[in-house]
């Protein structure tokens, strides 16, 4: 098992190298001259040329790439052209918001998706089954930004139930422990902050969850339907177990194995920052920061964010792979 983990971690190296190379090249080829960008529109050609020399932008591409790479390995992602702050600091200050939103969304998606999937499978072809599968179809096909906007219109502007945007009411931020507001406010028993944080997160998390929820519901339903026809389910019934025990203890655990893959993949995607959702709800996470950086041609920030997001994605996937061993004893890692 330990050997497998080490092997998998070593395998991450070429993957991340490839990603870094790709990101570097794309940005190098398609962005405007960073020196000109940094100096603003009133700079003279001589000033720009001097800065280009100073930044090493006249060196061959591969030299620049290896310089970039060696900085990267030392944890130096460069500085944002917009804020002049180190890119990594910017990312870390934004990351907790993204993690909090992703966790909330995955939580909602998994709980609702699995429950709906199980009930649909157990009551196949019932009214509930039809409605939930229509709902799931809507969930996968509805654009998230549109859903988000419609939710804002309904719940914030018409009904005034929920705040329009942001993470928490100004001045309500709980003491910083983990950076996750919900967690921190529970840890410090700051119930007012908790309430504010929950009211803010519920809409973006639900909007973000809609796609994953639909995927999880459909996946759970189809694997449950398959598992319920297995011989060992008949064995469980022949033991005299209650139908609920048969469903939840014997069928669900088997049915969840492929569902966990889907949840893991979705988790990786969401952790990397939900660009659209964060933008629609002005959620101060990595996704919305990335959009700002792209619009401002802030290439070190874009570069750093994408590499960071990719790293999170592959690490989350690795963790999910390792989780299988616990869920499915037939899987042996070696």
């Amino acid at each position, binding site marked *: 098992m330990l050997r497998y983990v080490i092997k998998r971690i070593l395998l991450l190296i070429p993957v991340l190298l490839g990603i870094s190379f790709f990101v570097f090249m794309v940005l190098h080829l398609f962005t405007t001259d960073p020196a000109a960008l940094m100096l603003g529109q009133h700079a003279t050609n001589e000033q720009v040329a001097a800065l280009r020399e100073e930044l090493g932008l006249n060196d061959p591409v591969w030299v620049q790439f290896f310089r970039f790479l060696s900085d990267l390995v030392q944890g130096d992602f460069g500085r944002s052209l917009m804020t002049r702050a180190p890119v990594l600091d910017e990312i870390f200050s934004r990351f907790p918001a993204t993690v909090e939103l992703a966790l909330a969304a995955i939580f909602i998606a998994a709980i609702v998706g699995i429950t709906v999937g199980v009930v649909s499978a157990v009551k196949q072809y019932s009214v509930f089954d039809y409605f939930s599968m229509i709902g799931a179809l809507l969930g996968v096909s509805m654009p998230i930004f549109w859903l988000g906007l419609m939710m804002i219109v309904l719940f914030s502007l018409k009904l005034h139930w929920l705040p329009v945007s942001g993470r928490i009411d100004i001045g309500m931020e709980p003491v910083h422990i983990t950076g996750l507001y919900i967690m921190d406010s529970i840890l410090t028993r700051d119930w007012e902050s908790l309430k504010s944080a929950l009211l803010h997160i519920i809409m973006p998390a639900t909007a973000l969850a809609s796609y994953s929820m639909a995927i999880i519901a459909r996946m759970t339903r189809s694997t449950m339907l398959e598992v319920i026809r*297995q*011989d*060992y389910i*008949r*064995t*469980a*019934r*022949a*033991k*005299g*177990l*209650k139908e609920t025990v048969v469903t939840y203890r*014997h069928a669900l*655990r*088997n049915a969840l194995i492929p569902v966990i893959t889907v949840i893991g993949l979705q988790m990786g995607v969401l952790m990397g920052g939900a660009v659209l959702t964060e933008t629609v709800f002005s959620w101060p996470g990595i996704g919305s920061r990335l959009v700002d950086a792209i619009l401002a041609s802030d290439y070190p920030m874009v570069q750093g964010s994408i590499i960071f997001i990719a790293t999170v994605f592959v690490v989350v996937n690795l963790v999910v792979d390792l989780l299988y061993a616990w*869920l*499915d*004893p*037939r899987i042996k890692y070696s």
Partner: protein
Amino acid sequence: MDNLLLNVEDLKTHFFLDDGVVPAVDGVSFHLRKGETLAVVGESGSGKSITSLSIMRLVPAPPGRIVGGRITFAGEDLLAKSEKEMRDVRGNRISMIFQEPMTSLNPVYRVGDQIAESLVLHKRMKKKEALEQAVEMLRLTGIPSPEKRVRDFPHQMSGGMRQRVMIAMALCCQPELLIADEPTTALDVTIQAQILELMQELQRQMNTSIILITHDLAVVAEVADRAVVMYCGKVVEEAPVAELFENPLHPYTRGLLNSIPRLDENVDRLFMIDGVVPNMLRLPPGCAFAPRCPEAREHCRETAPRLTRVAPGRLVSCLLVEGGAA
């Protein structure tokens, strides 16, 4: 009849499909005494497995449904029981083992936990106590180092081992009746003999009655006291095993016995019954076996025979047998 354990009378289990109704079990009657082993013999699709699932009230519904008949077990009417009452019977007083040991155990739980689950449920044991009992059951079924194997997952065991686990699981609550649905079909011949021997040994120890469902006449000869032969959802013949082999009355039974390859005769081709099992959606009006029967007469195709007693303990459903006519 004294020491009667199970009495199945005119059992009808039909499957309601889009294309029509399949009478998978159509008026089946038989009985079983305490400590006895009854073989139910027939080809695939003859309704023998559905008969056993009907006794357990585990027929997949929809599309299946028990539409008629009576199942009396230890004086109680099983078809009148509520689902909750049935759950107290299943795995406790009647238990079942299945054909496919490879897929009949839940892959994500340790075998010990799967055996213990029954004991916790029916015998109200504590988990720890139940696991100790599971080790004992594994020891009884002849699994070496049971205290280690109890922590195995099913995939770590061979087919024969898994079938032993299934037997341990089925017998752990000391049921009065064990229904074994083709318990050895998926196993190697050497393992088959061991499993059959084990079942007989445990039957003697626990005084359990066994219904053995099989298509394998060699197995019947080995372990059963009496046999019921089924064809197209109906019982065509019932007899003590020795008499059945010596003097089969129904042409179908004779066909089955003739199709066993023999070492002491040199033949170019093995015997087989002509034709195939008819479509259960469109059964012929007369005897269901008539289209394949080498001895069928005209009236066989028009009149359906009824199961009739022709000698003590011998019943047959054939118009050609003297006294066997309707």
